[in-house]
């Protein structure tokens, strides 16, 4: 089992014909993911060969969905065009939209989230500025390396791409149901809480690893949620204890404002909810193994 993505997921790639789109589409195909084609209005009707697959290019997301039954879309669209591409996928009713693009204006994201709400939430958005989602040995939508680890009992949700890979590497011996990077922007389509809820409901996930970082209060809210609703063991890692106030640390959302958004406050909130918080990625992995052994 897994959350949000499985071997039957039919993946459309918006921005497939660009250089990044090609590289990562090849990676997705190599993972066994069913990539059904791409969207590019200027190249509609043509096919593109990527990693030995002839992939059709559609003029619009709606055309692609009608022709292929695509139920996931991955966006490698430059920031200036991301809002248009996101709204196109939302209007077409694609159930899962994974936005890899870094640098999307926050008001564009806000408008897309508002439109998703207006349409009753039929589209789940992951990102922007995220590495995507992987269900090892079944499918991958995004840019996550597919050779780190295999299928297993750990579920992972993270704001950071490379820390996702680091923890997958540390827990390569255990394996994952699904690992999900929710992104580093101030506004995100999917939060820690929604991922926790999905892992709680997934019968095969036995331990949940949650990676957070400075900025906002997503981790504090997740702590409240865990206390009230999550029965499975959760272990966490928080990055940014040494971050100075008022500086953006790489991710647009990673900023400490006054006393809020600090790593210490997140750690405290999580520990108060019974979550073991590792000081290092390695210690976090140890906690996860201990929780598995006890479960």
């Amino acid at each position, binding site marked *: 089992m897994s959350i949000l993505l499985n071997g039957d997921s039919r993946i459309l790639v918006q921005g497939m014909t660009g250089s990044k789109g090609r590289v990562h589409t090849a*990676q997705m195909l190599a993972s066994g993911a069913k990539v059904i084609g791409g969207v590019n209005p200027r190249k509609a009707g043509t096919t593109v060969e990527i990693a030995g697959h002839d992939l059709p290019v559609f003029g619009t997301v709606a055309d692609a969905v009608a022709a292929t039954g695509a139920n996931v879309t991955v966006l490698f669209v430059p*920031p*200036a065009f991301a809002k248009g591409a996101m709204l196109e996928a939302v209007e077409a009713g694609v159930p899962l939209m994974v936005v890899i693009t870094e640098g*999307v*204006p*926050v*008001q*564009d994201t*806000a*408008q897309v*989230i*508002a*439109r998703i709400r*207006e349409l009753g939430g039929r589209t789940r958005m992951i990102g922007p500025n995220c590495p995507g989602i992987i269900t090892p040995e079944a499918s991958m939508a995004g*840019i*996550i*390396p597919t*050779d*780190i680890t295999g299928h297993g009992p750990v579920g992972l949700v*993270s704001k*950071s*791409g*490379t*820390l*996702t*890979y*680091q923890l997958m*590497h540390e827990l390569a011996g255990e394996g994952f149901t699904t690992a999900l990077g929710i992104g*580093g922007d*101030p*506004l995100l389509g999917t939060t820690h809480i929604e991922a926790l809820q999905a892992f709680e409901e997934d019968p095969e996930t036995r331990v949940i690893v949650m*990676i957070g*970082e*400075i900025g*906002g*209060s*997503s981790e504090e*809210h997740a702590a409240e949620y865990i206390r009230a609703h999550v029965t499975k063991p959760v272990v966490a*890692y928080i*990055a*940014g*204890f*040494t*971050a*100075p106030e*008022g*500086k*953006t*640390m*790489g*991710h*647009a*959302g*990673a*900023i400490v404002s*006054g006393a809020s958004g600090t*790593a210490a406050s997140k750690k405290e909130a999580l520990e108060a909810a019974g979550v073991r918080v590792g000081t*290092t*990625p*390695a210690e976090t992995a140890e906690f996860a193994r201990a929780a598995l052994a006890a479960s």
Partner: protein
Amino acid sequence: MHVDLYEYQARELFAAHGVPVAAGRIADTPEEAVAAATELGFPAVVKAQVTIGGRGKAGGVKLVHSAQEARDAAKAILGMDIRGHTVERLMVAAGVQIASEQYFSILVDRTERRYLSLFSLRGGMDVEQLAATDPEAIIRTPIDPLTGLTEPAAQQIVRTAGGTEQIAAALAPAMVHLWEVFSQEDASLVEVNPMILDGSGAAVAIDAKVSLDGNAKFRHDWDFWRGAESQGLEARAKALGLNYVKLDGQVGVMGNGAGLVMSTLDLVAFAGKTTGITPANFLDIGGGASADKMAVSLGLVLSDPQVRCVYINVYGGITACDQVVDGILEALDRVDQATLKPIVLRLDGNKAEEGRALLARAQSPWVKSSATMEGGAADVVALASGENN
């Protein structure tokens, strides 16, 4: 990257969108301040221009009644240090008669994932303090990103706070213009404290705070970047397109991915706890770092005279570690040899073994390989504190 504007810059945006502001002039010297105050008429207000709050408490705002007082105030405020920010510019504003002071702001609500407006009839005081002591005095109203703030909605906000019809009618148009500043300028924050009603009952914004979303720069011709930019190494990094934050310590830190680099900073600080060793900087070189980018990045980190050694922490995702090592070796040749410092390198992930083998063959005296990210942090701290040297 968000950009905090100075008051005089934010005030220009307000004026451009029809928000009523008090007359004001920029002054960079006491003479200019005197000329500005004389032109505007007394009393006038001399205000420090800094992109941080708390300037009033720090003595950075002074009401002046004569040319002599304007000169004295300007002399006192120019060069003043306000919470780490040096005052280099003043704004002189016309004094206005204040009948009442209100607070209004619009910001991005990260939790609810929409916008939020805050309004209070008790403007003029520290809003965070007000939120702590009397939270009910602040009216919190969500704003839908698709529909925005309308004049009836703005009036309702004022009435909910207990304002009269007259106050609501006077403030609402200015509040809608502030929404236009927020939405049309891609702001992440617009704040006015206080928004006053003057002797004639008209609304005037007598302070202006705006943060812009740097990601939206492509669709604006903002000219705020020079003034609002950070200085020194951070400015150089920005010009080079690098994601760099200067810190106070001795260990230069670079890696791929913001989360991994933040984590690396923490590991260095934890390992250095007993010896006082801390990170000198944050630098995310991003995915697919080329040899060129590696050289530029390493050069920047090494140009910080406080740096005693460097920790490069790479997890090869799509990026292959052997290419990273290629980049580092090339960078070692290209950077100013006089500035070179010992480097601890931790590689994992895609082609990590190939990368480590390549490094071993190169036999560089400058680079030591560590097997884990925790081990690398311990190694680099030992180097920085002079052990095993």
